[in-house]
């Protein structure tokens, strides 16, 4: 077993060796620019990209033409939200999103607000899920877009996408979802879920970093203004030379996920349950953040009462986990996602995001249980609050 154990699969996933294998020839002999129309180097690259486009489309029940390649889910979310607003903003100027969205969705919404849009940020329940009635009540005649992430990057909860999609359709509102954490983890079907726009990431599903995609519905057509102008690639929606090897890898990652997702989820669920029972069975004061069942198989987010999160991380040098999303990891602020569930700042601070994935083994899970339980116990042993609690003081109950 190689240390440190990687249990941060929501931050990024290792590139699957099968994916890497498919990418390699496009780094070396098949190096052409896919937009070179005058020679076979270009044609060969273009052909590989179109195959990948089909593989990605297939995983979400879309048509290949509806897939626009980007540099990643952050860019896709920017393009979806700002690009839509630039086309339809004259007619409709209200956007609805959720407090637990990824930073890039919230930041994109903030930019619209600066441009005069109205933005509604819906709260979530203690389980991390949105309230459909609250969403329905927030939609007005001026509402252009509802953007709700499919799977949360910190707590792994799955939002009720089909219900949101049906609601959006009945109220004539565009529905965008950040699917970065969902792709290849749960079945996604753009028609069944009523999605108009869906952001996708490669490096969260064992593909390479630096590539993502945006699904853009064609029937009925959703129009977007490009964020990047230039050579007019991707039907004018996203200029720039396409990175052929990365796209080939992304396509292969989707192909593999399509075949293995169901079996993999089963296996991850059993590893995750083993991890949860292993920790919660040996420690008191462990809280599971996010809905117990409406969640992906590869995520646990746990709060540990009477410990301090950053110190806990420092004591966990052999287990790579995180206290929140990677993007804000360096700031050491308590997670705004956990705060939105109603956790107080101390408990939000004392939380770990544990992400399991394709290469996680039972042996690693058992090692992680011992490491996490040990670290929490050591820290509690030094805490006067914990000592009072052990002596039965009601003052420190929480």
């Amino acid at each position: 077993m190689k240390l440190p154990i990687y249990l941060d699969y929501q931050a990024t996933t290792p590139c699957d060796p099968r994916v890497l294998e498919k990418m390699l020839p496009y780094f070396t002999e098949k190096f052409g620019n896919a937009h070179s129309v005058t020679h076979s180097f270009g044609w060969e690259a273009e052909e590989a990209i179109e195959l990948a486009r089909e593989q990605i489309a297939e995983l979400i029940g879309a048509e290949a033409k509806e897939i626009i390649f980007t540099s990643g889910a952050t860019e896709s979310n920017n393009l979806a939200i700002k690009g839509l607003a630039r086309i339809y903003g004259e007619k409709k100027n209200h956007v609805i999103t959720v407090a637990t969205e990824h930073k890039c969705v919230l930041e994109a919404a903030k930019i619209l607000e600066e441009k005069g849009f109205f933005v509604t940020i819906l709260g979530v329940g203690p389980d991390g899920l949105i309230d459909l009635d609250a969403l329905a009540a927030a939609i007005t005649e001026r509402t252009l877009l509802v953007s709700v992430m499919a799977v949360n990057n910190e707590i792994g909860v799955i939002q009720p996408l089909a219900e949101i999609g049906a609601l959006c359709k009945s109220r004539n509102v565009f529905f965008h979802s950040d699917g970065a954490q969902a792709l290849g983890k749960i079945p996604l079907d753009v028609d069944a879920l009523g999605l108009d726009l869906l952001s996708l990431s490669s490096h969260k599903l064992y593909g390479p970093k630096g590539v993502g995609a945006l699904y853009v519905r064609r029937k009925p057509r959703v129009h977007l203004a490009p964020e990047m102008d230039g050579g007019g690639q991707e039907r004018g929606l996203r200029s720039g030379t396409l990175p052929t090897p990365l796209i080939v890898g992304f396509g292969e990652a989707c192909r593999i996920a399509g075949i293995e997702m169901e079996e993999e989820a089963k296996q991850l669920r059993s590893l995750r349950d083993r991890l949860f029972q292993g920790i919660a069975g040996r420690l008191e004061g462990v809280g599971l953040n996010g809905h117990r069942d409406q969640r992906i198989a590869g995520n646990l987010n746990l709060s540990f009462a009477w410990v301090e999160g950053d110190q806990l991380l420092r004591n966990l040098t052999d287990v790579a986990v995180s206290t929140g999303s990677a993007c804000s990891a360096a700031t050491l602020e308590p997670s705004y996602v956990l705060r939105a569930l109603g956790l107080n700042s101390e408990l939000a601070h004392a939380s770990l995001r544990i992400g399991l994935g394709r290469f996680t083994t039972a042996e690693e899970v058992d090692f992680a249980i011992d490491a996490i339980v040990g670290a929490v116990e050591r820290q509690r042993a030094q805490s006067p609050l914990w000592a009072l609690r052990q002596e039965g003081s009601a003052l420190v109950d929480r």
Partner: protein
Amino acid sequence: MIYLDYNATAPLRDAAFAAMSEALRQGGNPSSVHRHGRLARRRIEEARETVAAAVNAAPNGVIFTSGGTEANNLALSAFPGRRILASAVEHPSILKGRIDAVVPVDRFGVVDLAALDEMLSAEKTPALLALMLANNETGVIQPVAEAAALAHRHGALVHGDAIQAFGKMAVDIEVLGLDSLSLSAHKIGGPQGVGALVLADPEADVTSLIVGGGQERRHRAGTENVPGIAGFAAAVADLGDIPAEAARLAALRDRIEKRALESLPGISIFGRKVGRLPNTSCLALPHVPAQTLLMALDLAGIAVSAGSACSSGKLGPSPVLLAMGESALAGSAIRLSLGWATTEAEIDGFLDQFISISQRLMREHEAA
């Protein structure tokens, strides 16, 4: 196959491939604070230093992007409120953006400095000038240092698109007097999908194009493409002695042009009378459409292009040549571009095919 389309994309350098393979196998999100994350972070910061040093900038001035197009787009949107002037021969990633005025070029494709001076004098709001160091189609080098000095006298900022020039001539952000410059990895034998916008002043107040997680000192959100960035830096480090490589490429390019001028009467070579990149030759055979020549060359196993690669399948006359007043020949122009892996033997092989194919096509036209 003989590949002479380096200005479209260059084959990946071995050093870049090795760096990427290592980074791909290591994994990790550079924003994570655990060991996997910290190793990835270190890789990026080392790459930043390498790229910065290559253009004489501060490491903090380097903003990694998804490529040259994004870097150019970011350059134009970074300083809102300024009117944007761009030369008529800029890359579409500049010209298709929010341009307020186009600065004309002369018949060699060199920006008209007198016209620029006049235009800047007439501007009432602060301006931003976008000027490429060297053109992607003709290789013609712009008087960037002079233009930048002039623009600064008028209070304008200057962005230099160095995407084609980098690796083929000296690119020094300070010597050129640029406020920003854009780079692309895959044009120098690095990977596709990564580039950079380099700021002369790392503390400049930049408005982001892509917002979110606060990466790249809040200038460019999104999980960093660690292997791509590592590959970019490895390619930069592998550039070696740029003047020596430039001389090698110029000798090969000049050999092509000398043979072509001797053997193909009536051939035009664009930008030959002014400074050009050492690796680029843009030429036109009289009355032979570019497409006809390109198809014949492709059948003979030679990969070249007509103008730039990114015009999405359309093979119209080159806007660059049209801006130079070459409308009669624009439909016949092809671009040869050489690079790090080009050998003397390839150039000999190319010349044998090219001369005989061109002579045949010219004869066919005369017979028709």
